[in-house]
């Protein structure tokens, strides 16, 4: 970075810290969430009901059209050729046989690709959507093994695939860094503009002096999202504008980013993505959409690009590996005197973040001294990216295993150790917690799971060949709300439609938001529809960070405020509501009524009818998310696992699992339970089987199939019990906090701790495959 750049960053940093201080000290009432959302008090509404998914009938019939299922007139099919070296230059490309193959419309390489601006990489701008900022097929450089180097368009997929296999490319290879051993210097990583480090007191000295201590290194491997739907886009240029049917968790970001890349106005790109076959952080902007759009422009034909499963591994990054040292010092009572959590995780020169594994430790325990640090180095690989609970998923593995190790050393129950170290305020930021009920979650969970039946002595329970053990761990994920939330309400005599550029990848967004809007507007559920997944709708709402519930919820709240004001204006002097201000009324029974005098009521239909209006359209925007700078806002969970390890073969089977969550108010118990379970099951994969195998010699991913990259199958998944405190967070919309990611946190450690209790073997190198238990 230049001196000017450094100076700029310092000034911005100073301004930021002044701002942060001001927000911390501001009175609650001035902040979003400062006054509790009235819906928190509301009983007997739609919120809290186990409503079945509104998109269910479509999905069980296979009738929901995903991105690769939209048919366009005259469409051609794309196939990608990938580089086979990690770094270097393309010397020759022989595309002659491919160009002459039947059905081929175009072979695009860096030699004929249109000139494009580099993709805006995540966090580099408000609406940046790309996993990396590598120029896309613009030069002869190769930056990772598997980078797209040619694209074929043909009349059928079979023809495109065949022609792709005929392309011959030679390279001038250059030395590449493809493993930690070959990486360059390590430096402190930054995440969201903040350095990934924290220091409270002298942790090394406190640790050295502690009477009880654990000091261990934990390793987690790379992971891939492996959504069942491979990335795909079907797109067309019309009159200089680009229309994209995409599979994305960021419609607005993708439209803006594509506009930047192709030199267009933002409104010249339209991204539609109503159905997404799983995302988990991976369904953002990667090279395939850009390449397909470029090829479509060159060939002047609509294009479908559906990545092969291998293509997903080659083009879309996943979670980086980590090597984490956790050192815990405690006094004789089990009170932590030192927490040291530091380690290294590689990234790529062109990716947006190092895996921030210290995040869960920042607000975990009331230690007197704390030292946290993520160091990172650059490797020549496909850009690593966000994957379900980035940071927390793997950070809790190390921290919560170490807590288990410390509990054993102290002869304390692992739950008791955790409760003894519950902080009053956030140990690093010093901010008050908005709502923290981890102890309640532990109590409820332990009781239901039968924790008291656990024998603390490892290897003390055996059933035939199977050694049986129990373990627990804390799950945690922050409340996020990103800037940019907005929503539109269209009200007519029959009900309301909510328009919001949010996403439904299976989280239940469409269903939960319909429930919330129904309560917000005082309408029956059937009278509310939610339109989402389209960049033409209001809002910049990433389906990430478990923030959609809050972001959309608050946006609709703000739009509703506008709506009430407009309705009161329309109601005029002839209404029972005459003279009332927006603060004096609430929505109920498909109309407005006075808060303390429900008899003063007029229905929406009546107001609109008298005003001669068919419909009323209002839009609202969410304020900046200052609440997260004022309170420490986190969800928690107490995770319980019973694992069985085969004494002969070392195979591990999880026989029981329970997650007890404190995530604020639960909007829809049915879809929420599925979200919790889904996270936990991905956590079981992380614990026992998932690993992306990157060949350190070549930087090439070798297990690039779902036969070789193991996801849990049905037989690996026991019945998973999920319960929750349902205690509303007074400072969040609806009292809810997001729940999409927390399930994967804590799970890996709970499994590892159960395996330890079963066998007496402490595995610190994940996944826990059978060879580590022989």
């Amino acid at each position, binding site marked *: 970075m230049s001196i000017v750049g450094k100076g700029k960053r310092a000034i911005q940093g100073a301004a930021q810290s002044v701002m942060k201080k001001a927000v911390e000290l501001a009175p609650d009432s001035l902040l979003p969430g400062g006054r509790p959302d009235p819906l928190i008090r509301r009983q007997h509404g739609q919120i809290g009901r186990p409503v079945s998914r509104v998109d269910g009938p479509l999905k069980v019939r296979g009738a929901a059209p995903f991105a690769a299922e939209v048919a366009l007139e005259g469409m051609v099919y794309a196939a990608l050729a990938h580089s086979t070296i990690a770094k270097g230059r393309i010397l020759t490309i022989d595309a002659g046989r491919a160009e002459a193959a039947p059905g081929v419309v175009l072979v695009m390489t860096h030699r004929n690709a249109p000139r494009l601006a580099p993709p805006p990489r995540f966090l580099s701008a408000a609406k940046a959507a790309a996993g990396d900022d590598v120029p896309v097929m613009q030069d002869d450089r190769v930056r990772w093994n598997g980078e797209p180097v040619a694209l074929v368009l043909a009349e059928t997929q079979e023809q495109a695939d065949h022609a792709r296999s005929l392309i011959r490319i030679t390279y001038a290879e250059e030395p590449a860094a493809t493993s930690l051993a070959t990486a360059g210097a390590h430096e402190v990583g930054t995440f969201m503009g903040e350095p990934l480090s924290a220091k409270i007191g002298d942790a090394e000295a406190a640790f050295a002096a502690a009477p009880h201590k654990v000091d261990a290194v934990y390793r987690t491997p790379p992971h891939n999202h492996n959504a069942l739907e491979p990335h795909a886009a079907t797109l067309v240029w019309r009159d200089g504008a680009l229309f994209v049917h995409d599979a994305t968790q960021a419609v607005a970001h993708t439209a803006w980013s594509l506009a930047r890349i192709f030199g267009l106005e933002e409104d010249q790109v339209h991204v539609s993505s109503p159905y997404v076959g799983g995302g988990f952080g991976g369904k953002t902007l990667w090279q395939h959409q850009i390449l397909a759009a470029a090829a479509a422009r060159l060939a002047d034909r609509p294009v479908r690009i559906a990545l092969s499963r291998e293509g997903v591994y080659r083009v879309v990054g996943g979670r980086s590996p980590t090597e984490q040292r956790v050192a815990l010092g405690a006094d004789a009572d089990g009170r932590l005197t030192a927490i040291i959590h530091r380690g290294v995780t590689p990234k790529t020169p062109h990716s947006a973040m190092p895996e921030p594994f210290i995040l869960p430790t920042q607000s975990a325990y009331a230690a007197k001294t704390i030292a946290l640090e993520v160091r990172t180095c650059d490797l020549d690989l496909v850009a690593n990216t966000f994957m379900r609970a980035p940071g927390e998923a793997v950070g809790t593995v190390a921290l919560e295993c170490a807590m288990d190790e410390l509990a054993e050393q102290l002869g304390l129950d692992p739950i008791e150790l955790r409760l003894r170290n519950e902080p009053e305020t956030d140990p690093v930021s010093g901010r008050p917690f908005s709502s923290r009920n981890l102890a309640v979650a532990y109590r409820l969970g332990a009781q239901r799971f039968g924790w008291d039946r656990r024998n603390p002595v490892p290897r003390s329970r055996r059933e*035939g060949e199977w050694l049986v053990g129990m373990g627990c761990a804390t799950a945690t994920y922050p409340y996020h709300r990103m800037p940019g939330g907005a929503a539109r309400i269209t009200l007519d005599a029959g009900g309301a439609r909510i328009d919001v550029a949010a996403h439904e990848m299976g989280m239940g967004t469409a269903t939960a938001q319909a429930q919330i809007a129904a309560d917000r507007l005082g309408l029956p559920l059937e009278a509310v529809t939610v339109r989402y997944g389209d960049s033409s709708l209001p809002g910049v709402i990433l389906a990430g960070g478990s923030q959609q519930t809050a972001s959309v919820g608050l946006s609709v709240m703000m739009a509703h405020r506008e709506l009430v004001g407009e309705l009161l204006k329309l109601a005029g002097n002839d209404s029972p509501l005459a003279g009332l201000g927006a603060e004096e009324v609430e929505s109920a029974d498909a109309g407005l009524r006075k808060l303390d005098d429900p008899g003063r009521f007029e229905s929406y239909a009546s107001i609109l009818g008298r005003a001669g209006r068919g419909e009323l359209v209002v839009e609202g925007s969410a304020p900046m998310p200052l609440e997260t700078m004022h309170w420490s806002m986190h969800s928690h969970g107490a995770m319980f696992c019973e694992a069985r390890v085969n004494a002969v*073969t070392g195979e591990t089977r999880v026989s029981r699992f329970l997650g007890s969550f404190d995530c604020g108010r639960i909007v829809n118990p049915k879809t929420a339970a599925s979200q919790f379970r889904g996270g936990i099951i991905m956590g079981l994969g992380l614990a026992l*089987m998932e690993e992306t195998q990157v060949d350190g010699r070549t930087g090439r991913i070798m297990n690039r199939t779902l036969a070789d990259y193991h996801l849990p199958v049905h037989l690996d998944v026991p019945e998973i019990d999920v319960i929750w405190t349902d205690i509303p967070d007074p400072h969040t919309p609806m009292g809810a906090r997001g729940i999409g990611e927390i399930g994967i946190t804590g799970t890996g450690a709970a499994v590892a701790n159960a395996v330890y209790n079963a066998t007496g073997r402490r595995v610190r190198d994940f996944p826990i495959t059978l060879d580590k238990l022989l």
Partner: protein
Amino acid sequence: MTPFSYLRAADADTALQLAGVHARHPGAGHPGVEHPAAKYLGGGTNLVDLMRETIERPGTLVDVTGLSDRIAETGDANGNRGLLIGAAVRNTALAEHRLVRQRYPMLSRAIVSGASPQIRNMATVAGNILQRTRCAYFYDRAGSRCNKREPGQGCDAIDGFNRMHAILGASPACVATHPSDLCVALAALDATVHLSGADGERRLPFTELHRLPGDEPGRDTALEPGDLITAVELPALPLAANSAYRKVRDRSSYAFALVSVAAALSVENGTVTDVRLALGGVAHKPWRALTAEQALRGQPATEAAFRAAAAAELAAAQPLRDNGFKIELAQRTIVAVLGELAGHDRTGDGA
């Protein structure tokens, strides 16, 4: 996929003819195969995938799923009853067959521990036998070296990810394993393969069908170009009624074996009178454990004897970077399976 023409055969003679295989005159030196690029297609569960990866690029596909899908009882004058299994019998049909479950339970067990139900409904017996290794470097035509795929190219697995690879019978040229479960049982059961080819009809002991890689890893089997498997025959084998198959893998279902054990055991008065033992996931071919069998016959049916036999079988094992655990795992699994067949209590140690 590389373009090909698709033909369908209802019987073996037609299949050979469509594949361009002509009867070879005795003593004639020239090959009797017109189109070496022809391939027989069974359920397609492996071949179609390999064609999509352009590892297999046949010019002609001869669909042989129309060949016999019968499972017939055979018998000789002495009343020994075996089974003749048509090449096109689907895996599920074989696993669920009453006589297979009664007389060769290890075969049923082996089949249902393989792949997924959908794949077992598709895959034929002959196709399962002729499936190719799942070595990731073999599959990665674009980016990895493999002597099996391209003779002389080199092997990227020997110093790469080789957790799934061979510990027995490998060569410097190839460390791949044969992925089948069904074949491990067939190797243990003294099966015979019925073949039809340029040399007419012939039979081959199943254990001689698959090869060790040596310096010709490109050849998985002893088959000549154009050879067609028409049936598999199981001999009468009374001890197989007391048989088992145990598969150890990285997840509880739908994964290839790290190690598998097929065993049949006969014990009289505490002494092993006869035994069949084969291992999967450890070699380039289904591994018939003759050394262990020999060590066991006449020995007391004790855990110690099982342990010694397993150790003898694995004595020649050569681990690679990632698969050393298979040596211990294979021995433990052998001991556990034999113990179960001998009626021992299910105990074990380690872990």
